[in-house]
């Protein structure tokens, strides 16, 4: 059964008068890893803000798991957001809380979890991202890669149906980046989580992504849409070739 989890139709993304993207349409299917790629400043993070409901569309439609992000009221969107996990570019951990408290934050919603089980659940999440034992550390005591992984543990706290990532591997060394690939792939296979990943990491795209859209800042929109393999063999557009056929380091 192929089911569209996210449907975007003719979306225009803008900050006030300043239009960043226009006429963007794509669909994300359940259980797939969907990559949004493009050079920096082309509007990837902006598109992500629209998908997770931090910004509301004025032109075009976004439907995420059946909820229309343009017309739904704040309450609905808020309840709906519990089905998402978002990993922000720098982790988005709350600095004044330990990792355990950070991860417990979304779990607060569920009433009456016995404390021992909460501790075990936190430990289980942390061990999924290879941070078992770091419960009582503060984010400032971790490296960038560890913070991203901890952010991922928090994003996964409620076993979301959709996980959004903003540049999960940017600024990480290749070894840590590979750990993140494995993690993404394990979670995707184990829990059938749909994943939307903003990235310009070619290795991630070719290893993991099922479908890719390439954004371009001059076009203010999508210039290529397909599987990684299709885009790698795409020859009609120089810009697409430049992006996908550059040598991986």
């Amino acid at each position: 059964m192929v089911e569209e989890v996210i449907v975007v139709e003719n979306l225009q993304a803008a900050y006030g008068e300043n239009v960043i993207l226009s006429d963007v349409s794509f669909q994300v299917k359940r259980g797939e890893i969907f990559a949004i790629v493009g050079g920096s400043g082309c509007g990837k993070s902006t598109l992500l803000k629209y998908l997770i409901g931090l910004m509301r569309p004025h032109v075009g439609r976004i439907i995420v798991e059946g909820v229309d992000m343009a017309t739904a009221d704040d309450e609905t969107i808020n309840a709906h957001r519990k089905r998402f996990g978002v990993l922000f570019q720098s982790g988005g951990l709350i600095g004044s809380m330990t990792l355990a408290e950070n991860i417990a934050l979304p779990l607060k919603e569920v009433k009456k979890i016995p404390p021992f089980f909460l501790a075990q659940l936190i430990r289980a999440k942390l061990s999924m991202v290879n941070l078992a034992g770091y419960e009582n550390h503060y984010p400032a005591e971790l490296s960038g890669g560890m913070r991203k992984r901890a952010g991922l543990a928090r994003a996964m706290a409620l076993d979301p149906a959709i996980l959004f990532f903003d540049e999960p591997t940017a600024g990480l060394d290749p070894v840590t980046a590979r750990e993140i690939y494995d993690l993404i792939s394990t979670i995707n296979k184990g829990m059938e989580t749909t994943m939307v990943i903003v990235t310009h990491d070619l290795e991630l795209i070719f290893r993991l992504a099922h479908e890719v859209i390439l954004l371009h800042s001059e076009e203010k929109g999508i210039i290529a849409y397909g599987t990684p393999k299709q885009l790698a063999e795409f020859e009609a557009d120089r810009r697409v070739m430049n992006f996908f056929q550059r040598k991986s380091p």
Partner: protein
Amino acid sequence: MTKGYRMEQKADRILMAGELLLPDVPSFLEEIEGILKQKNSTSLEINLTDLKKVDSAGALALTHIEEESRKRSLVVAWKGMNDDVRKVLNLIDRQALNLPPLHEIEKRVSFFEATGDLCVKIAHDFYTILTFVGELLVSIPYCLLHPRSLRWGDILVNMRRTGADALPIVGLLSLLIGLIMAFMSSLQLRQLGANIYVASLVGIAIVKELGPMMTAIIVAGRSGSSFAAEIGTMIVNEEVDALTTMGFHPIRFLAIPKIIATSIVVPLLTLYAMMFGILGGLIVGIIGLDITLTTYLKESFRGVELWDVITSLLKAFTFAILIAGIGCHRGFQVVGGAEAVGEATTSAVVTSIFLIIAADAAYAVLLHYLG
């Protein structure tokens, strides 16, 4: 709310069906606890054939059954686990579950320990402030000798923020203080028929003490805190490290312009505050006490000498250096994240107000012996 799972016990078998998800986990744990408590045989079969789905909390709850059974020397046999459940169960690393955390959370310390810590902290604080003063003593002459190394644009911006932008609030508060003082003192002096002394009383109090002090406290709250926050945030964002690696001296680059700007602007603000304070007294004098404008002003200036104004401006200058110095110093002390910036801001205001009052007391003693 209906439960997503169903559980049925038949002698040594438990049949599970439906979906075991996080919201149902607490009640599931309770139920399972009850079942295990009653059991007195040595084996348990758990049949998961009809269990369609678990999430990670559900999977963890299943591993919890195994754990609990082991404690009661029960042997658990799993039957009919489907692939979806198995995949999620495999995500859970059982060995990791029971290891202790790497750090323990700091325990609460006893009163004596806390007092000792506080003393050490204050001593250390004193030491770092002295070090900072030392650095300033080196940096300020350097900047004065090399005026081109100063960032004049930044000084002007800081003068605007600390000075011009504070004009409304300083003016308003001084005016109100003058009004209040004149009003309160007139209640007493009127009984003695000494209305006319309201003028010199307000004049002396405003010029000698309240003008410089009020201005300094307002500037500490407005600008001292913002210096600490600005520099602290720059430290958190590694901007200060970036400046250092580009060969800039962070104190010269960030602190000196603020200190110079503040020490120019605070004496001016103080003069301005004095004017408004006297104006406040004047309003009460004219409206409430029927003193004429000229008499009031003449009386005011009889109590106040030029020397008083000069020493007050000197005081204001000292306060300015304290405010800006402490603000920047607290900013540079930031280690860690956003929370530390908040602490630095608070500490900048508290420390500088304390030092302002201490310095004011020192001036009072000094001026007493000088004059």
